C-alpha cells in the first residue's frame, strides 16, 4: 500500500561502515509466561522458532523472536504477515494471561554492515561489543547515545538496531556520525 | 581584632608581613557552652555570628570534624540569587542576598560579593510561563527581577547561542542584584568575626554522640571529649542524617553527590551568571577567569564526595550547545559535594524531637546563597526556642501536614 511508509523511507549512509534503514518490519510485543508450554507452542506456530534463551534472538522459518525481559518477547516477521502472526499468537495464548500487541509501526530498524561494525555501536552504547562478549544471535537492549534501543548481530558481522520510530532520525544521525571516515578506532580488529 | 584595610597592608608590607595576627583562635574546648553549633560551614558559622550579634549570646562553640568551610561551603559554584517563587523561599533567600550586600563591611573581610546579575534562561513555552509567574510573585515579595527577551539576553551574554537547533533561547528571568561571592571568604570572614566575639571554633573535632536526658540534649561526645551545652544546633549539610541518627531521630532527607567543575582560566568573556535549567547547565566566570560550572545530582545515596561522570557529560554538552565557544576550552578540575535533599527539595530550619536541639539542613543545591539568611533564621530559632517569621514555614512538621514549599513548580511539566 502506497499509504505505508517507514520512518525515514530507507535512508542510508556510507562511512567506514554502511548504515541503512531496513524499511518496515512486522514487530509484535508478547508478554506472558515465557516458560509455559502455551508460549512455546504459540511462538513456534507463529514463527517456527523456539522461545529464545536469555538475551538471545532465535530464528524460525516465518520469523525471529528476541528475548526482551523475563516476561516479554519481540516477534519479528515480514510487515505484511503481522495480522496472521498476531492471530497465531493470540490463538496459541488464548485462555492464558498474556498480552500481544502490534508495534510494527512504532519502530525503526537500521542495519550496520561492512567494516568495523562493532566500533560504530561501541561509540554510542555502553555494551561490551568485543567478539568474546557479543556474537551472532546475541540480542541486547541498551541505549544508543541518549535513547533506548535494542540490537542484535547477524552471522555476517552486521548489526540490526531497533529504536522507536519518533527518534529514527536521531539514531540514524548518531550512527552516521559514528561511522564517519577517519573515525576508525581499530580496537576490535 | 586588628582591622583589615589598605593602610594595614602598607604598614605590614614594610615589615614583610610579620605582624599579621591569626584570623581566628584555635582553642581547646571548654567544659560547657550555652550553645554548641555542630558544623563550622557557612551556615553554622553564620548561625553563631548572628547568635552573638543579634542576641548577645557569645558563650558558643562551633565544632567541626574537619576544617572550617571545608564542606559544601568550599565546594559550590558561589551563585547568589533570590528569585524564588514561593513566599517563604523568596523571603529567606532575599534576606540572605541583602545581607551579602554589606557582608564585607559587616565582617571587615572582603567576601567579594559581586552583584553581576543572574539570568535563568527560558527555553520552552512552559518555562517562559513559569518565569513570568516568578517575576509576578517577586514583584509582590519585594524581590527585584524582570523577564527579559532574547535580544537583551544576548546583550548581557554575548557568547550565548540564541538559536540552538534544539532549545532556542526565548528569554530569561533576570535578577540584576544576584551574582557571586568568594565562598571560602564567607566562611573565613564569619569565623574571624565569631572568634573575635570570644566564640570557640574547634576544628578537627568530630561529634561521636549526642547526650540526652529526659528528651533534652545535655551535650555532645566528641573526639576531644564530652562537652556540655544548654542548646544544640545541628548545621551539618551532607551529614545531617548521620547526626540525626546519633540523636535518635530520622529526617525526611537523603544525601546525594552534587558535582561542579571549572575550566582553565581565560580572559573575561561573560560578566553575568547564566543558568539554563531545561538543558541542565549553569555557568559563570570567576575573577580568576575560570568558567565555573554546576552539574547535576546523582539519584542515589552517596557519601563519597565523588559523583558519576555522566552528569558531567550531560552538563558539558548542554554548555557546548548554549555557549559554543566552550567546546575548545578544557576542564581543569571536577569535584563533588554531598548535599541533603528533602522531600520537597526545600531546606529545613526547625525544631527536632529533642526540645533544645535545632536543625538547619536540607539545602540541596542551594545552600551557599542562603548562608547569611539561614544563619540569621537559625540564630533566631535557637535564641528564642521558636521559629521566627523567616523560618516559620521551614519546620519538618510540614511533611506531616502536607504543606510543602515546592520550588520546582516554576519549571512546569509537559502537556
Amino acid at each position, binding site marked *: 500500500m502506497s499509504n505505508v511508509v517507514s520512518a525515514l523511507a530507507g535512508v542510508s549512509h556510507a562511512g567506514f561502515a554502511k548504515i541503512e534503514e531496513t524499511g518496515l518490519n512486522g514487530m509484535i510485543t508478547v508478554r506472558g509466561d515465557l516458560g509455559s508450554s502455551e508460549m512455546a507452542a504459540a511462538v513456534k506456530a507463529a514463527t517456527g522458532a523456539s522461545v529464545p534463551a536469555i538475551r538471545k534472538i532465535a530464528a524460525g522459518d516465518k520469523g525471529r523472536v528476541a528475548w526482551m525481559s523475563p516476561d516479554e518477547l519481540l516477534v519479528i516477521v515480514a510487515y505484511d504477515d503481522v495480522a496472521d502472526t498476531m492471530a497465531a499468537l493470540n490463538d496459541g495464548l488464548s485462555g492464558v494471561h498474556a498480552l500481544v500487541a502490534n508495534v*510494527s509501526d512504532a519502530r525503526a530498524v537500521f542495519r550496520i554492515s561492512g567494516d568495523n561494525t562493532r566500533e560504530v555501536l561501541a561509540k554510542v552504547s555502553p555494551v561490551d561489543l568485543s567478539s568474546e562478549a557479543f556474537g551472532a544471535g546475541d540480542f541486547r537492549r541498551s541505549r544508543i547515545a541518549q535513547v533506548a534501543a535494542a540490537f542484535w548481530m547477524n552471522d555476517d558481522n552486521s548489526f540490526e538496531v531497533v529504536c522507536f520510530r519518533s527518534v529514527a532520525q536521531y539514531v540514524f544521525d548518531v550512527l552516521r556520525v559514528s561511522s564517519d571516515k577517519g573515525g576508525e578506532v581499530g580496537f576490535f580488529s | 581584632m586588628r582591622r583589615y584595610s589598605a593602610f594595614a597592608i602598607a604598614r605590614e608590607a614594610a615589615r614583610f608581613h610579620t605582624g599579621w595576627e591569626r584570623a581566628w583562635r584555635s582553642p581547646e574546648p571548654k567544659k560547657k557552652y550555652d550553645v554548641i553549633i555542630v558544623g563550622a560551614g557557612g551556615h553554622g558559622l553564620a548561625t553563631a555570628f548572628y547568635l552573638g550579634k543579634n542576641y548577645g549570646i557569645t558563650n558558643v562553640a562551633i565544632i567541626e570534624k574537619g576544617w572550617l568551610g571545608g564542606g559544601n561551603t568550599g565546594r559550590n559554584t558561589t551563585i547568589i540569587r533570590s528569585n524564588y517563587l514561593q513566599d517563604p523561599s523568596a523571603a529567606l533567600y532575599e534576606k540572605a542576598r541583602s545581607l551579602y550586600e554589606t557582608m564585607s563591611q559587616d565582617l571587615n573581610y*572582603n567576601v567579594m560579593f559581586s552583584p553581576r546579575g543572574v539570568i535563568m534562561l527560558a527555553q520552552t513555552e512552559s518555562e517562559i510561563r513559569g518565569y513570568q509567574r516568578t517575576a509576578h510573585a517577586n514583584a509582590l515579595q519585594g524581590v527585584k527581577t524582570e523577564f527579559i527577551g532574547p535580544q537583551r539576553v544576548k546583550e548581557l551574554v554575548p557568547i550565548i547561542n540564541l538559536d540552538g537547533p534544539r532549545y532556542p533561547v526565548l528569554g530569561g528571568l533576570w535578577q540584576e542584584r544576584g551574582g557571586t561571592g568568594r565562598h571560602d571568604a564567607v566562611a573565613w570572614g564569619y569565623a574571624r568575626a565569631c572568634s573575635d566575639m570570644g566564640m570557640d571554633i574547634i576544628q578537627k573535632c568530630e561529634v561521636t554522640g549526642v547526650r540526652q536526658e529526659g528528651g533534652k540534649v545535655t551535650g555532645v561526645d566528641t573526639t576531644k571529649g564530652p562537652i556540655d551545652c544548654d542548646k544544640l544546633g545541628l548545621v551539618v549539610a551532607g551529614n545531617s542524617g548521620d547526626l540525626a541518627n546519633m540523636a535518635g531521630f530520622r529526617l525526611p532527607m537523603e544525601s546525594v553527590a552534587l558535582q561542579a567543575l571549572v575550566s582553565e582560566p581565560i580572559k573575561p568573556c561573560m560578566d553575568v551568571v547564566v543558568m539554563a535549567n531545561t538543558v541542565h547547565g549553569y555557568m559563570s566566570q570567576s575573577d580568576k577567569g575560570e568558567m565555573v560550572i554546576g552539574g547535576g545530582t546523582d539519584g542515589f545515596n552517596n557519601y563519597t564526595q565523588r559523583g558519576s561522570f555522566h552528569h558531567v557529560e550531560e552538563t558539558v554538552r548542554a554548555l557546548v550547545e548554549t555557549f559554543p565557544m566552550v567546546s575548545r576550552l578544557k576542564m581543569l578540575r571536577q569535584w563533588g559535594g554531598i548535599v541533603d535533599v528533602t522531600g520537597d527539595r526545600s531546606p529545613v530550619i526547625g525544631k527536632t524531637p529533642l526540645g533544645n536541639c535545632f536543625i538547619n539542613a536540607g539545602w540541596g543545591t542551594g545552600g551557599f546563597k542562603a548562608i547569611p539568611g539561614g544563619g540569621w533564621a537559625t540564630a533566631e530559632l535557637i535564641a528564642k526556642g521558636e521559629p521566627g517569621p523567616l523560618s516559620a514555614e521551614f519546620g519538618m512538621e510540614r511533611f506531616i501536614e502536607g504543606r510543602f514549599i515546592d520550588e520546582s513548580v516554576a519549571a512546569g511539566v509537559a502537556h
Partner: protein
Amino acid sequence: MSTRLASGGRLLNKGKQVHFSFNGKQLTGFEGDTLASALLANDQMMIGRSFKYHRPRGIVASGAEEPNALFNMGEGGKFEPNQRATTTELFNGLSCASQNHWPSLEFDIGAINNHMTRFFPAGFYYKTFMFPAFAWKHVFEPIVRQSAGLGKAPKDRDVDTYEHFYAYVDVVIIGGGVAGLQAAKAAGASGAKVILMEQTPHWGGRAPVDGGDVDGMPVEDYITTLINDLKQMPNVTMRNRMMGAGVYDHGYVLGYERVTDHTPLENGPRHRLWRIRTKQIVTATGAIERPLSFAGNDIPGVMLASAVRDYVVDYGVSIGDRTVVVTNNDDAYRTAIALKKAGLEVPVVLDARASGGGALAEEAKALGIRVENGKGIAKVKGGKRVTGVAICAQAGEGSVLEEIKCDAVAMSGGWSPVVHLWSHCGGKLIWDDAQAHFRPDATRPPKGADGEGFVIPAGIANGPLDLPAVLADAHAAGLAAVKAIGMTSDVTAPVAEEKPEAAMEPVWLMPQGAGPKLRIKTWLDYQNDVKVSDVRLAAQEGYESVEHTKRYTTLGMATDQGKLSNINGLATLAGQLNAPIPAVGTTTFRPPYTPISFGAIAGEARDEVFQPLRRTPISGWHADNNAFDEPVGQWRRPYCYPQNGESHADAVKREINQTRTSVGLLDASTLGKIIVKGPDAGKFMDMMYTNMMSTLKPGKCRYGLMCNENGFLMDDGVVARIDEDTFLCHTTTGGAERIHGWMEDWLQCEWWDWKVYTANVTEQYAQIAVVGPNARKVIEKLGGDMDVSKEALAFMEWKDGKIGDFDARAYRISFSGELSYEIAVPASQGRAFWDALLEAGAEFGIMPYGTEGLHVMRAEKGFIMIGDETDGTVIPQDLNLNWAISKKKEDFLGKRAQLRDHMASADRWKLVGLETLDGSVIPDGSYIPADGNNANGQRNVQGRVTSTYYSPTLDRGIAMALVHNGLDRMGDVIECNTVSGTMIKAKIVDPVFYDKEGEKQNV
C-alpha cells in the same frame, strides 16, 4: 642562549623541517619536536607572563607538569587558549601566541604588579577593596578580572568533531614508560585483555634518557624488545597520545585520546574520550621532579634538571651554553654528565648535601665537572633570562660566597610519584622519609564494587626510583593485576642494573635559613605566583589546614594543578607549623590528570544530535507548511501555522475560528497510549486512577485523573475500555514513558501477584483529532466501513474500522468542546491519512491548528491542562474535579495523602474563571494580591492566574485562576498584578466560558 645542537635528538626526524609561527615570527623545527623543544631551539627563553605579578616566565619542564608554557594556539574555529607547549607536537602551519600580557610579551604594562609584590601578599584581596561598598563590583573587581585570566576566549564555533568509545577489558595500564610496558607484558602473557595507554607519542618514557641496562642490553634496546613482544599479543591494545584522565568508581577509566591534534588536516575526530570499564588498573604513571626553592627560581632559564636532560638527549636542544646544576640528589648529575658529553659547559654542580653524591657524582667529577657539596643558590641573577647565580652555603642564611656567570640553571629537589590516578577514587598515600615524597599505600587502595582494591601502582609511581627496583615492581604489578582477576602469567622478571645512588636529602628552602627578603623572591607556584613567604603568612594567620593554605594563597590551583608546587608548598607549611609533613596532610587529587577538552566530554552530542528530537509521522508536513514549533519534552509540536506573514496571534485566531465554525485538524500523535491487560486490570486501574475505572463498559471512554502518592495531580487522559480484560490509557504528551514506568513500578514492586501486563504503544499510532461542526462530514467523505453517526458512535465511545483505506480506531472525545473525533491509524499510514483528511476537508476550508489553538479552545471550555492548572502542588479537589474522584473506592494512589490536614482543608485555593473588566488579557503568571503584608514584609496573596488567553471566540481576555475560597466568591472583582506594578481588575466567574451545556460536542 638556548639553541639546537648539531648532534643528538633521538626523537627527531632531522630530515623533515616543520614551519610554525610564534607571536607572528616564522620559525622552523623538526618533525618529532614538541612546540616547547622547537621554541627553545629558536632561543625563546621567555614565553609568557605569570598570573598575578606578570613576571617573565620560561619553560620549566618537558612534560605534562609544565606550568608556564601555555599559548593561544590556532585560528578561527581551531583557536584554543592555554595549550601546553610541552605536550603539543609540532606540525606544519602551527601558529601560537603568548598569553597574559599587554601590549606585548617583552613590554607588559601589567608587570608593574611585579614591583608592588610586597603589597600583594597572599590573601590581600580579603583585607582590602572593601570601601565604599559598591567599589568592589564597580572599581576593583573589573581591574582584577582584566588582569587575571590566561588565554583569550575563543570566538568562533569549533569546527572539529569529537567522539566517545566504550571499551570493556580486564586490565588497564596507564603509562607507557618502561614500567608500564613491563607491567603490560607480565599481565598480557596471561591472556587477559589489556589496554596500555601512553599520553605522549613515544613508548618507553624517560628510561632511554636516564640509561641503565636490562637483561644485558641498554634499556633503550630492551624497550624495543618489550614493544615488539606486546605487539605480538592480540589481547593487548597499545594506544599512545592517550592519557589516563581519571579513575572513577567501579573500575571506570577515562582515556583522553588526542587523535588529530598533531595532524589537524586529517579526517576524523580531534579527540576521543574512552570510557573504559576494567577489572584492574595499573598506574605506571612515573614521577615528577620537584623544583628547589631559592630566590629567583622563576627566572627564564631555570629549569628542572630532568627537563634540561630531556631537551638535550631527546630533541638536541641546549638550554644554555653554561648550565649550573643544583641538586639534593644524585639524579641531577645525569644532567651534568649529559650536558658535558654534548659538549656544553657545566661550571659547577651545587649539591646541597654536605656529604655529596655517590657514583654519578664521581663520574661527573671524572669528566672534569666542578662539584660543590653543601652549597646552594642564594639568588639567581637576571630578569628576562638567567645571567648568573650567587652561591651560598646551604646551611647558612644566604651570604654570597661566589658569583658565577651562567645562562641556565638545572635544578632538582627530588622526585614525587604521580599518584593522581591512584588517588582519584580514594587510594591513600603514605609519606616516604627516605625519598621525601608521598607514595601509594598499597594496603589502602581504592576499592571496587566487590570491596577489593582495583588499582595497583607500578614502577616509579609506586615509589622506587632506581631502574632495577622499578622494573621488578612493575613486573610484580602486572602479575598482581591478573592474579586479582583469577588469571596467571608465567613471564619471568628481567634483571636490570644501574649505578647505585647516594641518599637524597630533603631541601625545602635554599639556603635553609633564607630570610624574608629572599623568601619573597622564592617561588613555589610559578603560574599563580605563590612564594614561600605567602605560605608562611597563611600559616601565621591561622590558615593551618592545607586546604585553607591552598585556597588562601592559590597554591596549586593553577592549570598545572600544583604538579610542581604541591609537595614543596606542603613542606613549607609543615615547616612553619613545626609539624611533620604527613601530619599536615595532602590535598585531594581530582580528575582530570591534565585538563581535557569540553569538546571531548560532550562527544558527538552537538548540533542536530545534541539531544534527541522526537518526530511524529506528520512532522514532515508541519515542517513543509511553516509550522512554528514549540518543544514539549523531547517532542516538537506545532504551536501554530502562520500563513502569508501573519503574526502568531493572528494565526492562532484564524485556526480557532476555522475550527469552531467548520473543521480543524490537530496532530495528537504525541499523546501517550498504554495498554493495560489482564484479569486484574480493572482492580489495577482503580488504584492508578482516582476514578472508578473497573465499571467502564467495553466500547466506552472515560476521562481519568492520576495522582502521585503525595496526592498531587500528575497526569490526565481518556481511558478506553477495549474489552473485559483490556484498557487503553491515554497520557499527556511526554507523559507516556513516565506513566508507563509508574504503572510498571507498582506492578513489579508492590502488587506483583496481580495478573496485569502493560505495553506502551504510543508510537504505533498516528493520532489525529478532526474537530468542528463539519468533522463528521469530512470523515464520512472518506468512506470506509465505519459508521461515525451520532447513533453508531456516541460521545465518549470508541470504535474500530476502516475510514477510507485506513485501519482506524476512532474515539468520540473532545478537548475543544466541538464535535470531535480522535482517530488513530498505524503510524506508517499517518502521513497519508493526514493528507487524505486535508483533501476531504478542502471544501470545508479544513486547516490544522497548533498547540496554542488547542490551549485556547480548552480554556474557553474550562478544561484544565496538566502543567498549567497543575504544577505539582495542586490536588484534583482544588480544580473542582471531585466528580472524577471515586468516593466508593477504599484506596487509590494519592487518596491517603489527600486526607492530610492541609489538603483536606476548606481553606484551599479553588479553580475559577476570570473575566477582565476591560476585556484585556491578564499577563501569564499574574498573582492576585490581598490586603496587607505578611510577617516577612511580603504582600499577601489570595490567588494566582493559571491560564490566560485572548479568546477569539469571545473576543476578550479570559483566564483561569486558583483563588482563595474562589467558589464562594462568584461575581467578586479582584485585582491581578503586573510586573510594572499596575493592577488589572477582573471578575470571578465560572471557568466554563463557552457552551456551558456541552451541546456542541454532543451532536
